[in-house]
């Protein structure tokens, strides 16, 4: 089954009010072209569930697409520092943060992936997070020991940028998959953006490298450079000029609109060169 879609069409799968999770971390292997397309299409009231967002939530916060976020840490990492548009949106009360630790988001996604309603998590003693974020406490029926538990969260979509995919949705990620393997199992369905589309035979030749199997995937978007200005190891590193330009652009009024316009042809060019 050929699941390849143009970026614009794949982004239309995301509907107002849905819960999404986004692959990559901070400024590494973020499906940035897809994130920009969501912003261009003006999707509203999304809830983002991701242990460590960065460029993605900063742009989506600037665009007003996200109403609520569950995360452990939000940063653009050094040398860019904290995500300024995320910070502003939160401090202005436009974006609610459900405070988590990275592994409590992980546990919520694990529960979803296992089809169970909640997941016990280790640690958290002494933290105020369980209290403000409504985690539960359950007595272990075997030892009586109390343990924190978090609810299952099953995102409607996992949007993941990969190095290689076939049109059925089999995909490889080189370097750390970060949380993406888990995300692909926790979400209802996956949307992949990919640096390359390759024949299925490529994946069948070494199936152990396929980190996302086709059965989880709804759409595949050819997006060469689709993580830009974040990295896609090993193809390209974080684009330093691209990051500073992004931060600079968004300081101006109407800066976001201009930024989205300027990046549009880059983002939408992938499909034209599809095999």
């Amino acid at each position, binding site marked *: 089954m050929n699941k390849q879609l143009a970026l614009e069409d794949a982004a239309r799968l995301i509907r107002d009010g849905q819960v999404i999770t986004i692959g990559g971390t901070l400024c590494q292997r973020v499906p940035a072209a897809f994130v920009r397309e969501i912003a261009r299409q003006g999707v509203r009231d999304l809830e983002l569930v991701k242990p460590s967002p960065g460029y993605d939530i900063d742009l989506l916060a600037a665009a007003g697409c996200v109403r609520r976020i569950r995360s452990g*840490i939000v940063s653009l990492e050094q*040398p860019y520092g904290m995500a300024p548009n995320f910070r502003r949106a939160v401090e202005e009360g436009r974006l609610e943060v459900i405070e988590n*630790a*990275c592994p409590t988001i992980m546990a919520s996604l694990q529960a979803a992936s296992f089809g169970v309603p909640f997941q016990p998590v280790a640690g958290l003693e002494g933290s105020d997070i369980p209290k403000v974020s409504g985690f539960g406490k359950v007595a272990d029926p075997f030892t009586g020991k109390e343990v924190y538990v978090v609810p299952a969260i099953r995102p409607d979509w996992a949007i993941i940028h990969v190095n290689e995919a076939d049109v059925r949705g089999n995909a490889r990620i080189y370097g750390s998959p970060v949380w993406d393997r888990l995300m692909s199992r926790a979400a209802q369905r996956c949307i992949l953006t990919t640096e390359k589309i390759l024949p299925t035979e490529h994946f069948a030749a070494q199936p152990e490298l396929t980190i996302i199997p086709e059965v989880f995937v709804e759409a595949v978007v050819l997006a060469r450079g689709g993580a830009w200005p974040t990295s896609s190891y090993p193809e390209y590193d974080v684009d330093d000029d691209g990051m500073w330009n992004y931060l600079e652009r968004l300081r101006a009024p109407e800066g976001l609109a201009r930024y989205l316009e300027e990046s549009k042809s880059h983002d939408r060019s992938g499909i034209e060169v599809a095999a």
Partner: protein
Amino acid sequence: MSSSYGPPEMMAVAMARLIRDGELVFVGVNSPLPLVAVSLARRLHAPSSTLLSIGGGINPTPNKLGPATSNARLSVGSASVFDNVDFYGLVARGGVDTTFLGLAQVDERARVNSSFIGERQRPAVRFPGGGGAAAILPLSRRVILWRASHSPRIFVKEVPFVTSAGNIDRIVTPLCIFRKEKGQLVLDSLHPYVTRERLVESTGFAIKNLDGAPLTPPPTEGELAELMRVDPEGVRRVEFPARELSAA
């Protein structure tokens, strides 16, 4: 102070010295100084320690270090890809000896706030969040905190929100090293170029053991030479505001 080192070098060396040979040490996101410190320690006194990098690598051998520690490039040379789910499993099973973690604020009872100040729904200040700290601080055998800045807004009497608390061993700053003793931060040593007066002015709570604490031994020639080899491009300096690099 010697012209051959400043706060970045002092911090990198001080953090490296805290690593014990044979330990399994985790370096997470947003952690340029710990990455330099562990790389340095592994070339000095702790060659058998194991570096677990959030970039996905075990004892990686990248050509050069970089400021974004989540970068997969920093894991080149590793014989496996160790992902985030694997790391949190390992730390939860008691398999991590030492973890380096950053902080936005910490109080005299060694409680860390990396979340927010003010109302949760509309905070006066939004911090990045604690990452995995809330889980890691109680689970890693030992946690070393660091911050490349030291002010009364960072070192506060009482944090308004506790993001994380737990097995803190040391906190390394541009001015000093704290240790945790009976649930309280205690001055462990003062960096050679810092006066006790300046430390007091820079800290938001009364410092325990202020007079009793020794000076941090300055970086040795050998440590500095190895540091230049490990970090020729000065990744250790990226967390410091330009003024603090020169003001030390």
